[in-house]
């Protein structure tokens, strides 16, 4: 392959470069500074993430398509998912000052790990090749394992970290095996190449391709915490420090969804004839079934939870199920919008819970918050808004997210309308457990000994930003929805041969 056909353009990976460089700088700062200035570190991290955000916006100016020999791609999917990840990372940095200060933990590594994780996630959204998918997945996962155990003297955090690590490695093995089988069947690891191989019906061993896709489905299903691959989620979410839970419940999930879309909708979705059609029907129905199981399991188990972090863990499983409803429409936009709405609200909720739970996450039982509703309104009213948004009450982001996903599924794929009905029934179930914390917080008498937590300015800013985001997406989503519509890859049908 000629060098000039590789399309080496460093601007195409500018966001990833910026974030990883800043992460290295943060490590050096930590090594050479004497007192470990928490604020300076947070400030540098914030600047780096904002610069990366600008770089993502500027990516839109480059030609869409593959770069570095197809290892990374630029397309609307990448732009939107990368933007969501950076928003999550920025909110996490704003909230981190409070977390590290209250717990008295060293700030240096935290921010550099957070940024390394972010760079891995950004790479995942950019992946045009199975090898890049794997690279991004590993960078994002390994740093998140460490973050989960960041409070290293805490047994629960250690358990969480180890569980996450073992089960995560297990799922990565599935993923890698699936990639190897797919390579064996198609002779390429490039996602576009896989699509063309399927479209031209030049598959060596069709069974290998189906098996490879199935194993990758398991791998992705694990990482987005969809049932029946969700069993690690509650323990890991409960044990990890609350801020880290908020981060890993959103960032990695969003990134893996991007890669999931790229591989399955971009690579495997060629319903023309033969193995392509088989594969298409197979994964669409598998994902549909997984989606229904995921939301039902998540919602029903969440009802009996007494711990707010476990409740949100099961609710996040349910939300992965709703996002999968958007996934089967073969379009990235409903999924991206849904995940954006979910991520903002979720990070905000965990930011509030971090304060209510106090240092060391001592108070995470819902009953610990009895009657505090009007004692700390700056915390409880935002929490109520976040919970109502997760429940999908209109005028919040969560409602528009659900509405968009349900509408897309209902209008574009009539054969899968049962998914919408299942999702609506699940939303009804979910109302019950989202109301429960509100009942305890506002309607029960005040538990004695409540002291209002002290909020840092950066934390307040993060909560205000998430509230604004919740209502902006809930009331004025028009601009974002319109910009997402531009340049969507339409699903290839039998009449249109698979060229891009």
């Amino acid at each position, binding site marked *: 392959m000629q060098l000039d056909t590789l399309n080496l353009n460093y601007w195409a990976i500018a966001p990833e470069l910026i974030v990883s460089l800043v992460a290295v700088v943060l490590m050096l700062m930590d090594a050479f500074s004497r007192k470990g200035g928490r604020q300076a570190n947070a400030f540098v991290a914030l600047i780096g993430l904002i610069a990366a955000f600008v770089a993502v916006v500027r990516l839109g100016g480059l030609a869409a398509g593959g770069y570095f020999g197809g290892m990374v791609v630029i397309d609307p999917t990448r732009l939107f998912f990368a933007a969501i990840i950076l928003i999550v990372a920025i909110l996490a940095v704003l909230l981190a000052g409070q977390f590290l200060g209250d717990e008295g933990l060293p700030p240096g590594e935290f921010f550099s790990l957070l940024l390394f994780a972010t760079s891995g996630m950004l790479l995942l959204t950019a992946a045009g090749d199975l090898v890049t998918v794997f690279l991004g997945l590993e960078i994002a996962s390994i740093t998140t394992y460490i973050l989960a155990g960041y409070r290293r003297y805490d047994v629960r955090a250690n358990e969480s970290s180890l569980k996450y690590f073992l089960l995560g490695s297990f799922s990565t093995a599935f993923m890698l095996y699936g990639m190897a089988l797919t390579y064996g069947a198609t002779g390429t690891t490039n996602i576009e190449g896989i699509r063309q191989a399927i479209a031209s019906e030049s598959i060596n061993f069709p069974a290998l391709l189906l098996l490879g896709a199935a194993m990758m489905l398991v791998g992705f299903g694990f990482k987005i915490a969809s049932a029946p691959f969700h069993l690690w989620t509650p323990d890991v979410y409960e044990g990890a420090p609350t801020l880290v839970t908020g981060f890993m419940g959103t960032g990695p999930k969003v990134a893996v969804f991007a890669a999931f879309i790229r591989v399955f909708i971009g690579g495997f979705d060629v319903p023309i004839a033969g193995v392509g059609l088989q594969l298409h029907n197979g994964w669409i129905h598998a994902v549909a079934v997984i989606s229904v199981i995921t939301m039902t399991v998540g919602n029903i188990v969440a009802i009996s939870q007494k711990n707010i972090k476990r409740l949100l863990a099961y609710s996040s499983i349910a939300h992965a199920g709703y996002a999968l409803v958007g996934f089967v429409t073969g379009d990235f936009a409903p999924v991206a919008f849904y995940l954006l709405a979910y991520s903002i609200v979720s990070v905000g909720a965990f930011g509030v819970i971090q304060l209510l739970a106090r240092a060391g996450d001592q108070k995470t039982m819902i009953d610990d918050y009895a009657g505090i509703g009007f004692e700390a309104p700056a915390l409880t009213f935002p929490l109520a808004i976040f919970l109502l948004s997760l429940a999908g*009450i209109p005028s919040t982001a969560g409602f528009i997210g659900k509405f968009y996903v349900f509408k897309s599924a209902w209008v574009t794929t009539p054969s899968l309308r049962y998914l919408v009905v299942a999702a609506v029934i699940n939303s009804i179930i979910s109302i019950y457990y989202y109301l429960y914390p509100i009942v305890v917080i506002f309607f029960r008498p005040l538990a004695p000994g409540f002291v209002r937590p002290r909020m840092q300015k950066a934390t307040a800013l993060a909560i205000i930003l998430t509230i604004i985001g919740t209502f902006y997406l809930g009331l004025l989503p028009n601009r974002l929805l319109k910009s997402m519509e531009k340049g969507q890859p339409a699903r290839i049908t039998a009449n249109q041969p698979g060229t891009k």
Partner: protein
Amino acid sequence: MNLITITTFLPLLGAVALVLHGLFWGARGTSGEKLDGQYRLITLFFTIVNFLVSLLILAGYDSSQAGAQMVTKVAWIDWLGVSYHVGIDGITIWLVLLTTFLMPISVLASWHVTKRVREYMLFMLILETGMLGVFVSFDMFLFYLFFEVTLIPMYFLIGVWGGERRIYAAVKFFIYTVVGSLLMLVAILAVYAYNGSTTFDIIEITSNIASGKTVIPGGVRFWLWGAFALAFFIKVPLFPLHTWLPDAHVEAPTAGSIILAGVLLKMGTYGLMRFNLPFFPDISRQAAPWVMTLAVIGIIYGALVAMVQPDMKKLVAYS
């Protein structure tokens, strides 16, 4: 600015005023009791002004013409086909007046509330905006939004300021209504899809269905009618979906009961007239005997139960 928009959002402005007033004067150390008195007066002021504004609407309403009047239609989420479309017609003008008339009375009736006065009044004002929004919306999306928004303040009013079994009553009220309204959401989406996925405008869809431009297949029509009807029957509430009402009535603070009986229940009947009759006229005709039977059962059953109620509020609820 259109008068309808002003009436709808004036209470919300009052809510903002309450919050700002509390932040400003609360920080200056005005005593709690004095502040509470000011909150009551501010709320009363906004509700009375709002009633006067709605009287202006009545003055401007031309009863010799059919159809919607004083219409504002602005693109809102036009990517989905949602518009901010409000107006009044011969039915809603009276419902709007009823709401704005009952609100000052409810505020006066809750003069004795001393627990968290600001939040109480805040929820009352948000509730008024929600109820008015339901009546003036001519867009299904907007209607659904306001329909759900009324739930949250009422939920808090019952849950925080209610009687002994307030938590049970509040949760029951919320879940009953949400079950119905989420099914209605699916029906709204379906009607939207059958109409070509371009608009949520109620007037446009009604005329498309009446002229036969939009045809919904027979079997589907039955289910959609059912989904809309269930949501509204729960609100009405029609026997046997009525069990949330006595609980909510008894446990709610008195002003809450006034609004519940006076306005919130009317939203159900109004919804039936706005959606079920024009969208599915044939199903509505076929279902009429059944609905009437249930209604008669409700009347007799309600009357019999009301006869033996020792509790005044429960008596009103069953009657």
